[in-house]
């Protein structure tokens, strides 16, 4: 337990952070980064895990308001539905920062800043690479997609970004597209089915590394060589994903960086001090090809 310092007073900053949950390795890396950088930045962190439930997250934010923290930050479970509680925060004069996922609200004064990646852009980058890779191809290219959890923001946005690029060129044909729930097991099962129901697949776009890694097994079991017979593009850039890329099993990985902690703490300090901050800060992200993966692997933390 302990007291909660008044907002902005005597330099001690309390940050209330409402995390989505611990639904993936990506997410836990994100959590860890925030916890560690809060400690090194000397910020008291009130952390809560909403277990993927918006109601829990709203409840957590309410309790932060009750506890009068200096700054509230959270990764919204969904994009909508935050106005009421954020208005309460605004009334209580507590600044809010969004991380990782944006919210869909007309009233942009409800939050100070959004720090995170652009899922649409990730999908688009994957699409761009595909377009470039097959720029010279004349034959039709059969594309399979492993989608994330149906209805989730990353799945929706990555599909959108990818489709925007790929659908522009008639030679790309999305022959199979199904949800793999962002997990290895589902990714594997779905890919197994694809391989049996489709006579030829040239390229696989997996909306995260895990599904891609699951699909690798399925492709190998079908007697094909991943990376050659079927080219694979994924999003995330986890250690295992980059390893697969370095081994030539993946062909391209678009990064979605979970290590937002340091950037967030800088932002929190600025916001707490009342400085103005940009409304939108994109995380530092790149994309990897085989060479880049090899270079990045040794220092990859998650």
């Amino acid at each position, binding site marked *: *337990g302990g*007291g*909660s310092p008044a907002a902005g007073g005597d330099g001690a900053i309390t940050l*209330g952070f409402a*995390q989505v*949950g*611990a639904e993936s390795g990506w997410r*836990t890396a994100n*959590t860890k980064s925030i*916890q560690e950088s809060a400690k090194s930045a000397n910020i008291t*962190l*009130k*952390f*809560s*895990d909403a*277990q*993927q*439930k*918006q*109601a*829990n997250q*709203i*409840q*957590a934010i*309410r*309790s*932060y308001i*009750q*506890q*009068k923290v200096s700054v509230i930050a959270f990764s919204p*479970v*969904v*994009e*909508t*539905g*935050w*106005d*009421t509680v954020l*208005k309460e925060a605004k009334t209580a004069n507590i600044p809010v920062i969004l991380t990782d996922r944006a919210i*869909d*609200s*007309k009233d942009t004064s409800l939050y100070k800043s959004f720090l995170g990646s652009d899922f649409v852009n990730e999908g688009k980058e994957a699409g761009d690479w595909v377009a470039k890779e097959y720029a010279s191809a004349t034959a039709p290219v059969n594309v399979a997609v492993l989608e994330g*959890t*149906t*209805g*989730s*923001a990353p799945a*929706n946005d990555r599909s959108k970004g990818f489709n925007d690029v790929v659908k522009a060129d008639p030679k790309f044909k999305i022959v199979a597209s199904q949800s793999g729930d962002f997990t290895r097991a589902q990714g594997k099962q779905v890919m197994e089915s694809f391989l049996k129901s489709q006579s030829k697949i040239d390229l696989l776009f997996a909306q995260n590394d895990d599904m891609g890694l699951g699909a690798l097994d399925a492709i190998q079991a079908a007697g094909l060589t991943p990376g050659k017979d079927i080219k694979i593009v994924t999003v995330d850039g986890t250690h295992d994903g980059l390893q697969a890329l370095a081994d030539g099993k993946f062909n391209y990985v678009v990064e979605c960086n979970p290590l937002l902690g340091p950037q967030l703490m800088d932002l929190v300090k600025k916001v707490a001090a009342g400085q103005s901050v940009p409304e939108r800060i994109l995380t530092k992200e790149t994309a990897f090809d085989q060479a880049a993966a090899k270079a990045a692997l040794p220092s990859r933390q998650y």
Partner: protein
Amino acid sequence: MTALAVRLRSYRPQRRYLPVLAAFALLVGAYGFGAARYPAFGSGQVVLDIFIDHAFLLVVAVGATFVILTGGIDLSVGSVAALSTMASADLLQHKGWPAYAVIPLVLAMGAILGFAMGLVIHYFEIQPFIVTLAGMFLARGLCYTISTESIAIDNGTYTAMAQTPIPLGGTLHVSPSVVIALVVVAIAGYVLHFSRFGRTVYAVGGGERSALLMGLAVARTKVAVYTISGLCSALGGVLMAFYTLSADPLGGVGMELDAIAAVVIGGTILTGGSGYVLGTVLGVLVLGIIQTLITFDGTLSSWWTRIVIGVLLFVFIALQRLIARRSR
């Protein structure tokens, strides 16, 4: 004074009220613990916030109470609630319907879904677990067909319901949804205790065949409880829409388990025939206070959060059992 004290000391509650009383005692204990440990916890608003944050769950759980009292189970509640928010949002935002038309419509939709499930359960003698699981798939599937993306609601009525706190003096306030939920609780309590239908619900839970042989309207009752559950789920969905002013196709995932847990923690027996709506209210509060204690602590990692929820759940349930057993 002393007479009262004596009477209080010699007060032996009826055995069937024990689980409910035990749950209440534990709640008070947990609140005291929180207030002693976290300064901001003691403000009454924390309790009111639990109501605000769980109004929709409460309504859904009340519906589930009816079903569980007959010895059935309804797994579709979470999805039906989500469907009701999605349908509301779609009609309000995309089709431009007014709120007063949308709300009755989605309520009717929930009731009809429940009614259909009740019919299948009773007349085709299929276990409620499967029928309502299929209902859960169906409702969630319909959510996706409406939209796979969440929809924000900016309808005036909904916004008013969401953002007009009802002051209770001082800084204390509740949302209109809490009032609605409490009204639902009161109606349900009245119906279960004072209406013929309510007593038939208990009778069916006590033994369906006996109830049939006693000449009670078993078919009507069974179908009705699922209809009520569907209606309550839909209303819960509407409150959910008030709560977040948005609709999410993935909303309410796992809510059926929360609702069932709340009902059962409140002392209702899953095989039917015994329990109270008041118990369900306490059950919801128990779940809420566990969540609140954890948020106030704010030092737990994700996994410790889950483990601690489990431990607190265990402490509550085990103590409740022991109290109920001891004071027999």
